[in-house]
């Protein structure tokens, strides 16, 4: 049985690299990623699991890092927006101008990336279901949906 009573050094697997970090049980994963490891791509928004700005991948699945304690994810694979490079969805976001202020963008991209890995041919119903997890207050949903479809074309061409 694992037991952490205070600050503890642990190793987290972030973007394929082992990162040594000292965490307290009360630290959320979002806090540790941003404040202790410097991965500021995941954004604090509502910090209540509603907005999706803090979305990262945990073992390949999108999760909201504000609702997870860092001590829970020891031994699991974490991917942040910094771990994605030139993916079809990143290119498509640029090509479709699928952002305005950009604050929600990393969360949307992480979620879209996971969805396209799981459902490369996602139909409108699946796209809407997955993307309802993220909020964009600049209301750029139409462009984001277009970006997803463009990324699907990129993937299917490759």
């Amino acid at each position, binding site marked *: 049985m694992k037991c952490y009573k205070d600050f503890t050094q642990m190793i987290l697997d972030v973007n394929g690299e082992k990162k040594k970090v000292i965490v307290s049980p009360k630290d*959320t994963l979002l806090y540790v990623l941003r404040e202790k490891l410097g991965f500021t791509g995941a954004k604090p928004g509502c910090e209540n699991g509603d907005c999706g700005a803090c979305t990262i991948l945990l073992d390949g699945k999108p999760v909201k890092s504000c609702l997870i304690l860092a001590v829970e994810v020891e031994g699991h694979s974490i991917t942040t927006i910094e771990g994605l490079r030139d993916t079809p969805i990143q290119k498509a976001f640029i090509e479709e101008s699928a952002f305005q202020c950009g604050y929600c963008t990393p969360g949307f991209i992480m979620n879209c990336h996971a969805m396209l890995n799981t459902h490369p041919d996602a139909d409108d119903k699946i796209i809407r*279901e997955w993307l309802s997890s993220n909020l964009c207050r600049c209301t750029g949903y139409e462009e984001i949906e277009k970006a997803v479809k463009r990324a699907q074309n990129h993937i299917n061409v490759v």
Partner: protein
Amino acid sequence: MLSFDFEYYRPDTIEEAAEIYKELKRMEKQPLYFSGGTEVVSMARKGVLKFNALIDLKNIKEMRDYVPNEEEIYFGANMTLNEVTEQESFLLLSRVVETIADHTVRNRITLGGNICGRLGYREAVLPFLLVDAEVCIAGAEGVKTLSMEAAFDKRLMLSSGEFVTGFKVKKSGSSLDGSSIRKVRTADVDYPLLQIAAMKDERGIKLAISGLCPYPFRSKALEQYLNDVEGSDWDIKGIYKLLPAAVKDDHIASSEYRKAVFEKSIEKLMRKWGEA
């Protein structure tokens, strides 16, 4: 970051979990079982939930299992709602849980967490209430299996130190035709004004309801009333005296609004099944 300190324990077995709970209580601590953690973390951040030790149940293998066999289906309490949605052996359960919260959060919310949660919705319990399911409950004395009907009254009746390890349903019940009706105020992702899980078998319509009253329930009196009326010759207002509590009236919706939504939904169900 949460604003108060606590200890974190991650047991590997049911016995370890029950034992550490008992030990922490003996030390006069406030332990809390924890799995997906979405409700615990958000409530702790708001200061409405206090504890000084968390016991994380995620590593317990039996609680992650999904075992369908010829006779019955076992759902581990730690299955996430998305994992439950992916199974096809109890479709009504899938249909009900696929609308709880949003897709990303459903990668964390667990079946046991939703049913044992502090929020009064606990939608995932509704299909279990319809099929004479059983619930497996662990504690210091080991694991016991109870009928859901006996164990659930407004909430799962757990004693101090007990936690749910899984749920069992008979295959015959889980394969019945079912219907899930969820009504929310505006956005797709919201708490339900009304969630109905309904089934029909040779004895008639069965339904369990969340969102309408302060807690989820199955009312056999209501079922009997609906099954006894013929065609459209029935008074929908008459069903309110058969509810176990008053219709909720809160910041999400007035009781009148909820009643209107409820009446439309019951009419829809009766059109589908009532005259068959």
